[in-house]
């Protein structure tokens, strides 16, 4: 498998997230324990000295306790499966009594007036309580599957890169036995908490929510104390730790981290976490809190631990989480066009969005008319699908909410896996479209099979995307295609010989602003280890936050050198480039290489980006007015918006490079020369 950016192994990830757990850590436990209880009292200026028992020993490494992990995981799995059953349907039990197998389970389902073919839970979260047990065939098989997966992960011990969604699925909730009294819990590098405004715990990344009720109340006390003073707490900094707060109506989200990520990134992550919750429940959850401020939300989220832990995991490997853009699987232009065409046919029959994805990468995406799909919604949706095992085993029809599209209402997602990594998602507003969408899927599947798209997808996945070693050295040479390079072969024995790209280039990310897409190069050997990749992503995050500072940004260019990297960032109206080099890289050469990267991306943009079938509506009108684009660049350029020369402030605007009156061409040439003299080019 090509060095996938998502290939962080479970063990390494956890190692880094828990800061050196020594069993005999010399911490004054009592003083800290006293303090936790005392905090709330201090807030009202009354100190209290009630010691909490220190019962929980520092937990051992994850892999040393496989049995408990599996037990724990499988029970969660069944809870999750039940939840899924309440909204989806096992393929083995599909029949005429399609939704009726829920009746025994779903005590609190609101009856649907439409009868047997109605949606399982169009009423939303109320229909998703899966607290009673129900023997289903899917349950049993998944337990077996999980045992097997878990076993392999232990044996491999991270040597073989695991699929992040698989990894997460196996892991689910980590260290559920911990609570705020455990030293190991306190030493975790990154905590996430969700609680209600009355202080009830809703979710915690580590530890058992119920045991964390006291801690949760403390967080609530801090937030409301500041709120009572007419202000709103955003951030608390203490040494290497940051505590970031986000208030969303009756729901409070808190991150406690010592990962050196900037405030803006952590806040963005809390926003995504909230979005993931809304995707499952919609914002009408607020109404429950209006009715009853002590409302307990945890049962509604029963079994969704894996969804959240997978999202949190993606914060450290998926640049989409901070770039707010999505990425495509590299495919030959015609292959993607074929996929787009069939999805377009389907979309014309009343499907809101049709999305074909492979892991976290988009193969094709089609939206109805001008409906636009926000990249964050795509991230949350694909995370939801990939982290829920039951989607893999059956075709499903599930109510979901796209928070950026409409946070108050459910859409309905028909999800079906076409192969191990490739899945089709059809979104509709109709709760009764299951059979229609099923037909659509059959149609799509048939076309894809006939046109060999799925094989191409598999090939692309194994070959990987842009490799910095392949960066054309000769600036005049137009490489044209990623798929004509003769040496694009998967390393047969897994040995990587590359030492990075020319001039010490290690990695780059290119984000096209108008397409809302990014492309990230494959990792070269200087950053082949997941630890190194995570560190690089965090450096990118800091760079991104610094470039897009709300007060003074966006900046235009940044060069940053520390002991780890040389980082170069270039932000224009059309695109953003983030590049990492060897820390000893020469500034001038690095700039030239960045230029070449931009050119390379432009040369192959119709293979790495989804053009034409953009989910955002803003592009279509712009392009039609310009007939100057080369056909090979696809139907829609990566730049847009310039209607006249006066508008054109950027030398990467493709519109004005040809077919101009002589004087204008001269002007442009002059402008280009001037631009070239001050930066890049």
């Amino acid at each position, binding site marked *: 498998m090509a060095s996938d950016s998502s290939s962080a192994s479970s063990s390494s990830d956890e190692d880094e997230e828990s800061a050196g757990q020594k069993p005999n850590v010399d*911490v*004054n436990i009592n003083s*800290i324990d006293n*303090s*936790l209880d*005392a*905090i*709330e009292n*201090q*807030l*009202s*200026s*009354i*100190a209290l000295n009630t010691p909490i028992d220190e019962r929980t020993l520092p937990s051992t490494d994850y892999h040393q306790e496989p049995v408990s992990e599996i037990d724990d995981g499988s029970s969660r799995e069944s809870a999750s499966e039940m939840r899924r059953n309440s909204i989806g349907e096992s393929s083995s039990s599909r029949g005429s009594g399609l939704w009726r197998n829920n009746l025994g389970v779903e005590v609190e389902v609101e009856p649907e007036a439409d009868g047997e073919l109605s949606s399982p839970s169009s009423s939303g979260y109320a229909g998703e309580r899966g607290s009673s047990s129900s023997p289903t065939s899917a349950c049993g098989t998944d337990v077996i599957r999980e045992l097997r997966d878990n076993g392999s992960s232990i044996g491999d011990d991270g040597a073989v890169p695991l699929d992040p969604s698989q990894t997460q699925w196996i892991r689910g909730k980590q260290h559920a036995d911990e609570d705020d009294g455990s030293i190991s819990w*306190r030493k975790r590098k990154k905590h996430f908490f969700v609680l209600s405004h009355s202080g009830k715990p809703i979710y915690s990344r580590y530890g058992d929510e119920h045991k964390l009720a006291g801690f949760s109340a*403390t967080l609530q*006390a*801090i937030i409301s*104390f*500041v709120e009572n*003073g*007419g*202000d*709103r*707490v*955003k*951030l*608390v*900094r*203490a*040494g*290497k*730790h940051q*505590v970031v707060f986000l208030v969303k109506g009756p729901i409070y989200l808190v991150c*406690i981290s*010592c990962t*050196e990520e900037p*405030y803006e990134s952590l806040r963005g992550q809390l926003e995504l976490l909230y979005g993931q919750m809304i995707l499952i429940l919609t914002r009408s959850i607020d109404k429950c809190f209006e009715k009853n401020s002590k409302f307990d939300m945890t049962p509604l989220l029963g079994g969704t631990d894996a969804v959240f832990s997978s999202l949190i995991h993606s914060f450290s490997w998926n640049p989409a989480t901070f770039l707010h853009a999505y990425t495509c699987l590299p495919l030959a232009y015609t292959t993607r066009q074929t996929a787009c065409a069939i999805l377009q046919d389907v979309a014309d029959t009343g499907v809101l969005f049709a999305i074909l994805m492979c892991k976290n990468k988009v193969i094709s995406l089609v939206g109805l008319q001008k409906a636009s799909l926000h990249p964050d919604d795509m991230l949350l949706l694909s995370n939801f699908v990939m982290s829920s095992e039951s989607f893999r085993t059956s075709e499903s029809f599930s109510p979901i909410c796209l928070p950026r599209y409409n946070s108050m209402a459910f859409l309905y997602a028909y999800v079906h896996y076409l192969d191990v990594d490739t899945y089709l998602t059809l979104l509709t507003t109709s709760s009764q479209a299951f059979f229609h969408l099923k037909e659509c899927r059959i149609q799509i599947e048939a076309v894809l099979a006939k046109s060999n798209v799925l094989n191409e997808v598999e090939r692309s996945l194994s070959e990987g995307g842009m490799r910095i070693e392949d960066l054309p050295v000769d600036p005049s040479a137009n490489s044209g295609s990623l798929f004509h390079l003769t040496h694009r072969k998967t390393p047969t024995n897994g040995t990587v010989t590359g030492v990075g790209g020319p001039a010490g280039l290690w990695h780059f990310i290119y984000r096209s602003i108008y397409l809302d897409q990014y492309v990230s190069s494959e990792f070269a050997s200087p950053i082949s280890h997941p630890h190194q990749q995570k560190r690089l992503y965090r450096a990118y995050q800091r760079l991104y936050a*610094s470039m897009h*500072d709300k*007060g*003074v*940004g*966006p*900046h*235009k*260019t*940044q*060069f*940053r*050198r*520390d*002991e780890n990297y040389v980082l170069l960032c270039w932000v224009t109206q059309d695109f953003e480039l983030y590049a990492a080099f060897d820390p000893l890289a020469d*500034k*001038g050469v690095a*700039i030239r290489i960045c230029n070449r990267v931009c050119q390379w991306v432009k040369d192959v943009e119709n293979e790495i980006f989804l053009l034409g079938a953009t989910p955002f509506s803003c592009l279509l009108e712009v392009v039609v007015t310009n007939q100057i684009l080369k056909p090979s660049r696809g139907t829609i350029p990566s730049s847009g918006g310039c209607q006249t020369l006066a508008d054109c402030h950027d030398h990467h605007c493709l519109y004005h490079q040809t077919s101009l009156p002589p004087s204008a061409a001269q002007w442009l040439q002059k402008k280009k020369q*001037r631009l070239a*003299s*001050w*930066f890049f080019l």
Partner: protein
Amino acid sequence: MGLSSAAITTPSEALKFCIFDLRRGQHEGEELEKILFFFPADLPFPTQLSVIGLSEGLITFTRIFSPEAACEVIEAELHSHVFFEAEPDIWMVMVVAKNKETEAIWRIEALRSVLKEIHSLFIMFHGSIRVLLDKEPGGGLTRSHLFTFIMDYLNDFLMGNKFVLPNFRDSLKQRGTVQMLTVGREAAIEVQSLVGALDSCMGNTSGYSVILFQDLLVSTTLTPDDTTNLFSYATSRLTPRVLSSGRSSTWSYLRKGNAELASRSASIGSGLDGFRIVRPLQHGKWSKGKDGFLVTDIWGVEVGNLVPTTPTLWLQQTEHKMYLCAYQHKSLTIILLIPVTSMLNGEEGISMLKQQLLENASAKIVKVEEKLAKGWGGENAYHVKGYRYLLVDGDRNISRASPPGKVTTLTKESLLAINKVREDVDLEKSRGNGNNDDKDLEICIRAKNNAWVIARSTRGKELYIVLEKANETLLYASEAIEKFSDRYCNGAFSLD
């Protein structure tokens, strides 16, 4: 003009400032015992306690995860709360309102350096807070000292009825550092000879001397920390610039106000009055005598002969109590510190010392002053054309910057950008705390307004530069830094 209540309440919305002791008032009903200082003092106690309660709560909370470094800052939508643990369990917390329109945009470390300066100056004149508390456990002594001292200090930031704390416009300044005068070789020899003469004046008392020209340090025999403290005192109360501009209406205004505030503050304490409070930061209290020595009655007046008592202060490292004796000739200020213990005959010994200085060193002083004045390039002496810069040598506590008049020519955007970059470097430094001081860092940003905003940090030295010349390449900017580094920093920031 008195400090009317309106004048107090208006700044109070923009600034709250408290000092509290976590070891005190741990029992219900005794919470007020914690408070050692609170500004504004007329804020109702429940409000004061709520500020301290939140601070204390978060100190405790953050220690759960970060036992080695508790809460440093709370950023809320409308306020920043800046924390500084001045002494074990004694915390200073400053709460400042944010306001983009009034340019209330802060850099946390700049605000923290204000807290640090207050504390180190306080220690220099009054000794540590803990020692004061131990001396008089009721706390009244400590409270009265802190109150008068900090009110006098804050007065420097009072403009009209508003506190103007260091904001983004002060990004190219570094509080708590010393600014040096660059002297030629010949002048250096003269200065050296003067230092020798001063030494012999003090005889075998093992005293120290500090020489300033204008507001710049020429020579010191003190440790860096003590030099920094004395330097910031001298440049705010003793130098010719301060003495000539002093006696403005502000001091009488505040003195009256302080009296009013002090009487109110008495109710905070346990009713212990009658401490004789020395107010070293009181404005307009220093003047130049006929003999050239600077005099003040801050430390009181000797009973009978009306001769002011010689000021005393504490050295930070040795904790020795020293007499402070300052002499001024034109732009030159000479400060002598003589151990109290070695002056057996007290004030008499000081007069003898003064006499000796006039007899043995005055010729040298005149000569040095002339020499330095001749070589002195005026207030824009350290301006470098095209550059707006700040150079900080953290190891030696020294900084040099573009003259303030030149920095004001920068656009607001550039200043905000360099403020942000400094914040960034502050964060990087706190991340690497302890384990690698010589963290190399280079940040070059081309801001929205096309200005280049640059930070370099290497081996304890930091350089910040703003280049507002548009349309230059990154390579050009780097070259400009290289040139600057070679010419003015002995190549400290050069790449090879």
